[in-house]
């Protein structure tokens, strides 16, 4: 995980606290602020607990209905899994439900940042399951089944390992546990089929022995699922459980596989691949590969969710979300009249580096452009999503629309004049509905009012009808989606398609007579085919229309909705729901997404091929002339569909919620190992962390002794102990604690201490920290420490060195502003910038031995010259001014290269480093041991001084004849470096160059070599 951005916020907080204790011995005040982005608690959830027979369900009141649906599913699945795994769980399983993905991102149960697309997770230390709903309750229930399979798998695995006294690291590979969880959470869905069809069609199917290479990818999940299906079909489902039960036999899972399946792993792998190919080859035979049949509009990197804007002068641009290995942005690609790309795309909206455009929902939310040239898109902005309206002609944002009750917003669609915005949104209870916002009136109107997942709305050109996709048909109970039309005036809803399929992303044709949409349908065996582009001709037939279940406007049941739909039709509205004709335009190997009309003759779509999303153009005229298939809508001549509901656990069943009460339990117990930047000793000890179930409250206890028997002092004398508590459950993270620190100390920051002979120091004190995030990228950190102590040792004053005891009662206050929007690669930051500005004041309130101000300004900027080459520039200024002002330190692999670690010092200094980072070998020899190899050219320079800027004096502690380190000189180095990623886990750095001790005079250069580990700055 990269340095600070990837470093979990919690860990950083904990480390900051521990280091603050250590640094309290010599507080350099503003020098120790960490970088990193912020996990912010926007909502301040009022947590409650429902206790069912086998689960403790954690929820907040707004999401109670959701929690009850989740609890019912969990209990149902418990019965299935208990039987399947032949086991019962000894204790209730904690399940934490969040209403939306945005709320889920705030969880403190995992310290890491959660990206879009994570459906939930199982945390095995405390056995916690954490799942968001995000509007799609069918998927929510499937994720519950998936995560509970993990719970049972790990329970059984733990028992097997304990029974056979096998080390804990002898476990199951991720691809197997995730594959099993997918396999036992339900039949393969259309996305599973898409991934496997693509893997076979593009010949990128990963064999068994190589599955670790794709660990964590979507493909790994789906291949894992396919493997479990293969085992079940070929050898028997019992063998899946045996793979868990027999894991104790060998450290190599391949050997366990061979034992359980009775064949060597190569044979198993070959049979599996043959099984999958035999299954999928007939299905993709004759299908079109998108790259061979559709012209690309945007083919580099990730490109999806296209829309087309026609300028007043008739020229056109295709806008889409794009990511080219960097931040995601909205790009505009100019195209000619034949929809061929002209020149390079331009970035219209640069996302993911500012609070307004914190994150796009790249896979979930479509773009739209009005006829008047207004672009609508959604970003996460703080604790909720907002709709941005952006005038493309004027190249400026004209509005940000956010709504108090709505947390997540998807797929805004605009009227021609951009005064009406319709979108899908999820409220704080986790329910997805359609909303209409009138910019003219400034009012928000909820168009649908039920538990169904209403998504992908598209407003007709006249603004009277919204086409959308929903699971509100009777097929929705089994996870299927159909198309619907909603009459804006009456709220009546009519079904446009009907059947066990996935009809998604409808878009009106320019004349309003057709809808283009993506659809995945089941074959005769019930298996989903590719997701293709379809056209619904709505004028082919007159209704009777079929009203959808759950229509709520006008108020009443389905019968009223049906009446409304009929009225809509009878009134001659352009929508003619009913028995229209559906034409399948494409027959792709894998999938097409989000078709949109460029004009009446062209469709622009995103396609999935070779595990990449690209934007392509289709010739609608020729495809309509020779469609792959023509079918009816399937909407039966019935007046109303039966509504369906998700099973739930009601309070009538005696299951009632109670307020959450914090109970602490052991979170992490580890051997402590500490070293400080100012002391040349290390010490081992114990670190314990306790936390509540939600991870909002943490207590850290650290203890070790810095003395050894050889030091002549007792272990108790050298006892270091600290207790700190930090609360992460609110926006402002507040921590406090107490410490007792003692031990020998080589203090390079002490202007009057000797660095080569340690003093003995002890200090007792308290500390407090507050970290307030301003946004995902910025925060303010406040830190106060007060410590009383003494230091015994040799001190140098007025040119004399003598034994002395220095007593202090130091109060230190620091405030820091931190910004970090840097984008990280495998070796360190590659784009963006991060910086710190800090000021601190330290004073000895009892003995007046110290009193100084510390200032720091630290800015690091990263320019991405090409996708793989980065220029990094770092500027740093530090000043400690006052009585006994502490010295600042430079040197080592990260800062002033060519100079020993932390030995260039002065009460003031400036420093700059510039580095050109470039790739050498993406897959070097010894791969994956060496996961990557990069190079660097660097130039470092610094000037350190304590008195006058140019008062050059020899540093008495670190100089010798061969290496005269002088304070008051400009030092520097340049050279080349090699960076090797070891197992993708950490980076070895090797630098070779020349250093200059006093100005960059070529004749005084000294060669140096330096080997260290750590990410680039």
């Amino acid at each position, binding site marked *: 995980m990269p340095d600070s951005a990837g470093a979990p916020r919690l860990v950083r907080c904990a480390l900051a606290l521990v280091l603050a204790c250590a640094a309290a011995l010599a507080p350099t005040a503003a020098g120790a602020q960490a970088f990193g982005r912020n996990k912010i608690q926007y909502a301040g959830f009022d947590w409650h607990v429902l206790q069912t027979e086998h689960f403790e369900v954690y929820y907040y009141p707004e999401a109670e209905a959701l929690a009850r649906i989740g609890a019912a599913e969990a209990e149902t699945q418990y019965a299935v899994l208990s*039987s399947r795994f*032949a*086991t*019962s769980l*000894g204790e209730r399983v904690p399940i934490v439900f969040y209403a939306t993905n945005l709320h889920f991102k705030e969880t403190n149960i995992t310290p890491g940042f959660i990206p879009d697309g994570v459906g939930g997770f199982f945390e095995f230390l405390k056995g916690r399951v954490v799942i968001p709903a995000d509007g799609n309750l069918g998927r929510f229930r499937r994720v519950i089944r998936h995560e509970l399979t993990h719970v049972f798998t790990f329970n059984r695995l733990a028992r097997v390992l304990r029974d*056979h*006294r096998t080390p804990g690291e002898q476990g199951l590979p991720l691809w197997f546990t995730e594959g099993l969880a997918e396999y036992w959470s339900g039949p393969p869905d259309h996305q599973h089929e898409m991934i496997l069809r693509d893997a076979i069609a593009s010949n990128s199917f990963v064999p068994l022995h190589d599955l670790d290479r794709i660990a964590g990818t979507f493909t790994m999940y789906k291949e894992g699922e396919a493997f479990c299906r293969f085992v079940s079909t070929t050898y028997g489902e*019992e063998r899946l459980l045996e793979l868990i039960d027999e894991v104790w036999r060998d450290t190599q899972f391949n050997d366990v596989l061979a034992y359980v399946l*009775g064949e060597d792993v190569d044979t198993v792998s070959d049979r599996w691949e043959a099984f999958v190919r035999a299954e999928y080859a007939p299905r993709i035979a004759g299908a079109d590969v998108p790259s061979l049949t559709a012209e690309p509009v945007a083919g580099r990197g990730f490109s999806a969710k296209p829309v087309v804007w026609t300028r007043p002068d008739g020229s056109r641009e295709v806008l889409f979300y794009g990511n080219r290995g960097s931040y995601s942005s909205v790009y505009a690609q100019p195209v000619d009249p034949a929809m061929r790309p002209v020149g390079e795309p331009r970035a219209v909206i640069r996302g993911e580096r500012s609070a307004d455009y914190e994150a796009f929902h790249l896979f979930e939310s479509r773009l739209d452009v009005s006829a008047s040239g207004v672009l609508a898109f959604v970003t996460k902005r703080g604790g909720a999503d907002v709709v941005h309206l952006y005038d493309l002609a004027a190249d400026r944002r004209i509005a940000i629309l956010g709504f108090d009750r709505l947390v997540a917003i998807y797929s805004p669609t605009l009227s021609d004049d951009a005064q009406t915005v319709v979108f899908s949104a999820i409220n704080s209870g986790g329910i997805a509905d359609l909303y209409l916002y009138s910019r003219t009136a400034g009012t928000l109107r909820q168009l649908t009012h039920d538990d169904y997942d209403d998504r992908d709305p598209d407003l007709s050109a006249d603004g009277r009808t919204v086409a959308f996709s929903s699971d509100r048909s009777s097929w929705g109970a089994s996870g299927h989606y159909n198309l619907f039309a909603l009459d804006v005036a009456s709220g009546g809803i009519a079904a446009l398609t009907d059947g066990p399929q996935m009809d998604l992303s409808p878009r009106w044709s320019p004349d309003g007579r057709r809808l283009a949409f993506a659809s995945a349908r089941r074959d005769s065996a019930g298996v989903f085919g590719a997701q293709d582009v379809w056209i619904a001709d709505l004028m082919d037939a007159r209704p009777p229309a079929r009203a959808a279940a759950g229509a709520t406007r006008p108020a009443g049941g389905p019968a009223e909705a049906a009446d409304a739909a009929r009225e809509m039709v009878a009134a001659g509205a352009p929508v003619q729901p009913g028995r229209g004709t559906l034409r399948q335009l494409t027959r792709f190997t894998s999938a097409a997404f989000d078709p949109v009309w460029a004009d009446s003759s062209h469709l622009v779509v995103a396609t999935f091929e070779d595990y990449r999303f690209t934007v392509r153009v289709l010739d609608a005229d020729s495809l309509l002339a020779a469609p792959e298939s023509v079918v009816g809508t399937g909407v039966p001549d019935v007046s109303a569909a039966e509504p369906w509901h998700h099973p739930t656990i009601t309070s009538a069943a005696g299951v009632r919620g109670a307020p959450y009460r914090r109970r602490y339990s052991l979170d992490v117990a580890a051997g402590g190992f500490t070293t400080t930047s100012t002391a040349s000793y290390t010490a081992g000890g114990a670190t314990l962390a306790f936390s509540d179930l939600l991870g909002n409250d943490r207590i850290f206890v650290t203890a070790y002794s810095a003395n050894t028997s050889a030091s002549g002092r007792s272990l108790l004398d050298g006892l270091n102990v600290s207790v700190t508590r930090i609360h992460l459950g609110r926006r402002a993270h507040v921590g406090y604690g107490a410490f007792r620190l003692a031990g020998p100390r080589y203090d390079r920051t002490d202007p009057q201490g000797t660095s080569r002979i340690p003093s003995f120091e002890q200090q007792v004190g308290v500390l407090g920290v507050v970290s307030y995030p301003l946004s995902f990228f910025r925060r303010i950190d406040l830190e106060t420490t007060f410590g009383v102590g003494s230091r015994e040792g040799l001190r140098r004053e007025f040119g004399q060195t003598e034994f002395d005891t220095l007593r202090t009662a130091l109060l230190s206050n620091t405030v820091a502003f931190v910004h970090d929007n840097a984008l990280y690669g495998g070796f360190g930051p590659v784009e963006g910038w991060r910086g710190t500005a800090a000021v601190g004041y330290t004073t000895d309130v009892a003995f007046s031995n110290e009193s100084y101000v510390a200032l720091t300004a630290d800015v690091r900027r990263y320019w991405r010259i090409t996708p793989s080459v980065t220029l990094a520039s770092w500027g740093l200024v530090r000043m400690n001014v006052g009585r006994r002002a502490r010295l600042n330190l430079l040197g080592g692999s990260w800062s002033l290269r060519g100079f020993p670690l932390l030995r260039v010092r002065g009460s003031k200094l400036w420093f700059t480093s510039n580095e050109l980072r470039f790739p050498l070998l993406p897959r070097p020899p010894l791969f994956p041991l060496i996961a990557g190899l990069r190079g660097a050219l660097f130039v470092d320079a610094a000037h350190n001084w304590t008195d006058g800027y140019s008062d050059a004096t020899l540093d008495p502690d670190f100089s010798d004849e061969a290496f005269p380190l002088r304070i008051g000189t400009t030092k520097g180095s340049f050279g080349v470096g090699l960076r090797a990623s070891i197992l993708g886990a950490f980076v070895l750095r090797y630098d070779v160059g020349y250093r200059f001790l006093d100005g960059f005079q070529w004749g005084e250069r000294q060669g140096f070599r330096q080997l260290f580990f750590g990410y680039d700055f």
Partner: protein
Amino acid sequence: MRTPDSVRCALAAYVLVALAGCGTIKLDAPLVPLAPAAAPAPPLVRAWETDVDGAFGPSPALVAAGHVVVGTRNGEAVVLDVATGRRIGGLDIGGSVEGMLALSPDGATLFVPAARGRHAVVAHGLVDGQRHWRWRADGPAESAEAGLVLAAGVVVMPLHGGLTLGLDAATGAERWRAAGTAGAQNHAAPALIPGGLVAIADDRGTVRALDPATGAVRWTAEVGAPVYAAPAAAGSRLFVSTTRGTLAALDAATGGLLWTARLDASGVARVTTAGADAVRAIVGLTDGRVVALDAATGAVVWTWTATGAVVAAPLVSGATVYVGTMDRLIVGLDVATGAETFRTEVRGRVKSALTVAGGRLIVLSEPRHVTAFDAAPGLAARP
């Protein structure tokens, strides 16, 4: 070339440590083999509980007069005194013991199967404390995880890879090998059936009755689903439980299928080894149900549902059937009606078959405990 002193010292230390870690069993007299006796009537009280320092496989403890012998996943066979629970001795064979053990008719030799390790079977002299013989597995496919039975002086042992092996009980010499169904594996413990035959069931659903003396197949039957639980013989019937929710009754003499009961329509629930008598067969299911069936017709007589999964074979004794559950309960049910008459909690989940020794109910539970229950004097059963 001389071996350096340091290497020799290290080797000597290793040997000492290895020897110190090896246990053995040496008794004053042979054990006396016993047929299972009647279980105590409920209510029961705990007589003793012993930590044997190792977890258990699915098979029950081996019963002898005054003693029980349990195999552990820690690689030991442990002899306990039934009266006190005291550990008499432990034989370390170095590989996990998952399946059934056997005792020679004279009680002097203990046959222990290992699921992993160099020695798939060890014949140990209980009085002389010596290893009489051992049979080495030739690879993982010859793992003896299902256990063994002793019949006609032959140790009959289904191997993981599908073969069944007959070893001379006196010498360990291989007497015969019997092939199984192609691609099948053996997971179920063998069962002695009337006529002196041994029933072997595999995970393709094939049941074979073998002559232990020659390995000849006397009859073959198909039960249509994988068999992981040991078949159970009662009277003239052999009850075969499958992992797909069915229980089949075979004619033990001919292998003819008498009836098949589909107890779980979803096919997900596994069925335990049946506890059976001449009148009924009682099985547990992993969905928590305990089902009693008419032994003659396969008709369901009653069903009782536990709050946890049932994976251990129930024990039918007199008017009571005892059931161990995965939510740490021992429950007594009326054999005739399925009414619950008794329940008590044990230390851990019960995955091993229950048995009776010295008039006591012997329960093996997680994590590594053997518990003996006595009838509670003077207490009436709960209605």
